[in-house]
Structures are given as structure tokens and as C-alpha cells.
């Protein structure tokens, strides 16, 4: 199993409060890694440390390293926008940009000037909407505002927008928590399809979803990684008491 992301001695503080305590984990390439744990345990913080979103909050302090194929993304020489291009994020709530469906998908590509002409952009929009499973539903109204879509469709649009900048990694911050069951299922099956090509890291608060998706599991509690390993091992035979309690639904 090849390691894609390696987190080394990561500590995160919000002001004086420590949100992550000495986190050391490895995230495998082209697998789905699920971060789970009770709310407030730091799973979202860990996720957002991977695309340097933590620094958007005032007063956040970060020490340690996050290595992406061996490069520390917190290195001074590293371009944060390149990091975020390589590491895509699917947010908790769908956040369509206030523009048309088409422009939403084009947005990132345009930012990075990835295509040469309209024809290429058009082809790319179709390609990524198809990947996200949205093309059939929207190809007749590409120039409608993105906000006219249903919540579930919006989330798939955000997925297409994220994929369009050709990332290697997809982060999902409870990406289905705002969606109805059918839309959730839809997103989940997209993510499973996509793991052939992308390293995927998902935060979830539902154990069932973790069991459905995970190849690899990280269990966190109070800012610490308690246990990490192959999903089948952790779910069937947890090594730690806390993990066992969580899996049994004791808290």
C-alpha cells in the first residue's frame, strides 16, 4: 500500500485551546480513508489541515508537517493555491458559487488557465458533470443559476467543480450531512467510483457511512488519533477500548 499523505507530529491550536495533539498518520493512495469520532474530536480540523484551510481562521497555530508525496505543504516555498488545486474539498454544505452551472464548473479551470479555448472548456464541463453524475439532469440548462438546483444536485455540482481542476486528493467534510438519503447515496456511490483515480479522505459522523465507504479508518478522540488502520481490521477487531465503545455505540 502506497502512502500519499503523511502527517507528522501535527499540533493545532485555536488560540490557547489545543485542537490536535501530536497527530501522526499515513493516508494511502487511491483508497477511501474515513476519519471518525465523536463531535468536537478534531476530525474536521485534521481534514482541513490537509488543504491548508486552517489558516483561514484567525489565531490558528500549526506545528508539524503534512507531507504530500514527500513535500511538506506547510513549507515556506510551497504555494498554498497549488496545494488547494491538488487537494480538492467537498464542503459540509453545498456551496455553489453565485453564477451559472456551467460557470461553476469552469471557475477553477479558468483560475488556473487550464484550457485554451471555449471548445475545450465545453468538453471539460461535460466530462466532469458526467463524472459527477449530473450531466443527464442539467445538460439542457447549463446556463441557469447554480442555486436553482436541488441541494443534492448542488453538492454533485460542487464535486464536479472540484474535480475540474484535476486534483489528486478529494477531501469530504461530512459531505452528505446536509442531504436527503437518496442524494447521500448518490454522492457515496460517486466517491466509490472515483477511488480508482483519487485518494479520498472523508470525515463522517455516521458509523454506517464509515462502514460503507472506508478502506482505511482513523478514529479520533479529544484531538488525538486513537486508532488507525485497515477498515476491516478496525471494525472487526478494534485495539483500543475507546474505539470499541464508539463502534458499539456507547457514546
Amino acid at each position, binding site marked *: 500500500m502506497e502512502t500519499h499523505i503523511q502527517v507528522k507530529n501535527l499540533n493545532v491550536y485555536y488560540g490557547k485551546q489545543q485542537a490536535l495533539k501530536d497527530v501522526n498518520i499515513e493516508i494511502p493512495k487511491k483508497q477511501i480513508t474515513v476519519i471518525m469520532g465523536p463531535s468536537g474530536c478534531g476530525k474536521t480540523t485534521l481534514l482541513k489541515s490537509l*488543504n491548508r*484551510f486552517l489558516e*483561514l481562521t*484567525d*489565531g490558528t497555530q500549526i506545528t508539524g508537517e503534512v507531507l504530500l508525496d514527500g513535500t511538506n505543504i506547510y513549507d515556506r516555498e510551497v504555494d498554498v*493555491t*497549488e*496545494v*488547494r*488545486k491538488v487537494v*480538492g*474539498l467537498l*464542503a459540509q*454544505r453545498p*456551496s*455553489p*458559487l*453565485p453564477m451559472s452551472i456551467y460557470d461553476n464548473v469552469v*471557475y*477553477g479551470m479558468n*483560475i*488556473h488557465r487550464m484550457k485554451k479555448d471555449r471548445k475545450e472548456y465545453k468538453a471539460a464541463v461535460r466530462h466532469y458533470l458526467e463524472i459527477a453524475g449530473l450531466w443527464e439532469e442539467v445538460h439542457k440548462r447549463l446556463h441557469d443559476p447554480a442555486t436553482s438546483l436541488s441541494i443534492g444536485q448542488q453538492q454533485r455540482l*460542487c464535486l464536479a*467543480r*472540484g474535480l*475540474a*481542476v484535476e486534483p489528486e486528493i478529494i477531501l469530504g467534510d461530512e459531505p452528505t450531512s446536509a442531504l436527503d438519503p437518496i442524494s447521500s447515496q448518490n454522492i457515496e456511490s460517486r466517491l466509490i467510483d472515483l477511488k480508482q483515480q483519487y485518494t479520498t479522505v472523508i470525515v463522517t459522523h455516521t458509523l454506517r457511512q464509515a462502514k460503507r465507504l472506508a478502506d482505511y479508518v482513523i478514529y479520533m478522540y479529544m484531538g488525538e488519533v486513537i486508532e488507525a488502520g485497515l477498515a476491516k481490521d478496525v471494525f472487526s477487531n478494534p485495539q483500543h477500548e475507546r474505539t470499541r465503545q464508539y463502534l458499539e455505540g456507547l457514546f
Partner: protein
Amino acid sequence: MSASQLIQKTAGRLIRPAHTPRTRQNNFAQRTFFVFTLLPVILILIVTVALIVRSLPILNAYPLSDLIFGKVWKPTNGQFGFLPFILGTFWVTAVGVILAVPPCLLVSIYLAEYAHAKTRSFAKPVLDLLAAIPPVVYGVWGLLAIVPFVDKVLAPLSTRWLGAVSIFSVNQPTGFGILAAGIVLAVMIAPLIISVMYEIFSTVPNDLRHASLAVGATQWQTIRNIILPQVGPGIIAAIVLGASRALGETIAVLMVVGNVPQIPTSIFDSAYPLPALIANNYGEMMSIPLYDAALLSAALVLLVVILIFNILSMLVIQRMLRRKWAS
């Protein structure tokens, strides 16, 4: 169902009847308070009506077009041409707003999008103090610093490089004039414009910022492509609000603008804005026929323009801020 039946129905547990002293006190208070809230609305109406009534004599004596487009101001001869004053007001306000808007926009973007809490907590008192400094102190500053600066630095520079362009030509080399007044006004209206723009920027939900940053946009790309299109109307409203403050500013402008009733052709010319006209002549306005009506009609014109500017911009700003509360 009568009250007595109701009381029987709720057997034992008596519902308090509607007219206890306490509820009566509440109703009375509500009515009194309500009258108080009428006060602001009534006040606007009274001020407007009073000025209309008092300017009627001159509006009846001369056709409106003569007053607005008349170029000669000789109250003793019965000539009341407001054009030089209207244009003076316009020039001074325009220069002030043009100078103020670019830095104010940049500062408000910086404070809303880039600055750390520390920078913000430094900028807030600076803006508060700028807003607190009295107009007359701005006037003194203008007199001591800006007028000489315009005279000794900007005017020679302009003669050298921009002399061919008529609005930059130096015809009256004193330093007193539209540019000096514009610079002073720009600083005076900056705190208001910046704080309104800052509020407007903070109405944009963070989700949008994050969505753009997540695909690898730089912050400026995010601001240009996502945030600015969202706040357009609010920014315009902030500028209009700033302009309306500049329109009515009296003492500071009066002290540096030169007060020459002429039709300005260059930013280095002296001018004579409406507020300065009113302030300088109130003393003798009762001695000449129609003079008081003329000055009060000048106040009326100012008031009406400012009311329109204010109401329009406030409506836009209030709507944008409510959107923030709602989301």
C-alpha cells in the same frame, strides 16, 4: 364565550383578567413610546416643510430656471443666480469622492478580507478618531497643511505635467480652492465610507470564499470574481452616502475653498459651495429683501438632494445587512 364562562372552564386556575394595573401600565407605555418613535419621521417632515415655506417667496418671485442657471449673484440688485454655488458644491464633492473612494475601497477590502484581528483592532480606533475630529479642526488642518501643499507642491507639478489639460490648469495660484477642499473632504468622509463598505463585505457568507479558495484561487481572484460582484450595490450605496456627507460639509470646506462666486473650470480654482454661502451670509440675510428666502432655498436644495441620496443608499445598505442577519 364570556369571560366568566372562560374562568369557570379553566376551573380553579384563574387566568389573570386583561386589565390589571400592570397590563394597563404596559399599554400606556407602549402608546407613549410609539409617539416617541414618530419623532424622527416628524422631524424630517418639519425641517423640510419649514424650509419650503420659507423659500416660497423667492420661488414665487423668480422662475426656477433663472435661479438654477443664473450666473450672477447680487442680492442687493435682486439678482439670485445659484449656478456658481451649485457647480461649486458639485466640483468640491466630486473631487472629494473621487479622491476618497479608491483608498477607502482598498482599505475596507483589506480589513474585511486580509487583515488579522490585530490589524483590525488597530484600524478601528483610527477610524473612530478620524470620525470624531470636529470639522473646524479639519479646517485648521486644511489651512495649515493642505492649502500650502496644494500651492507649493501640487500646483507646480500640475503646471509642469498637466498644464495643457484645462481642469488641471492653475489660474489662481493661492492654494485655496476645489482641490484643497476635496482633499480635506476625502479624509473627512473616509471613515464613514470605509465602515459602511466593511459592513457590506462582511455580509458575504464565508462559504462562498471557501468554495473559491478550495479550488486554488488566490484571495484576490476570490475577491474579484466572487465577492465584488456580490457587493456591487452596497459599494455604490456607500459611495453615495459618502457623497451626501461631502455635499453638506460646511465649516471645513469654507475655510479652504476660497469662497469666490465663480463658475469653476479647474480643480485649482476657488469655488463657493452652497453650505459656505449659507454660513457666510446668515448674519445679513434679514437686511436685504428676499435674501433670507434665497439662502433658505439653498438650504432646501441641499436638504432635498441629501435626503434623496441618503434614503436610496440607506435602503440598499439596510437590505444587504438584513440578508446577512437572515443567513
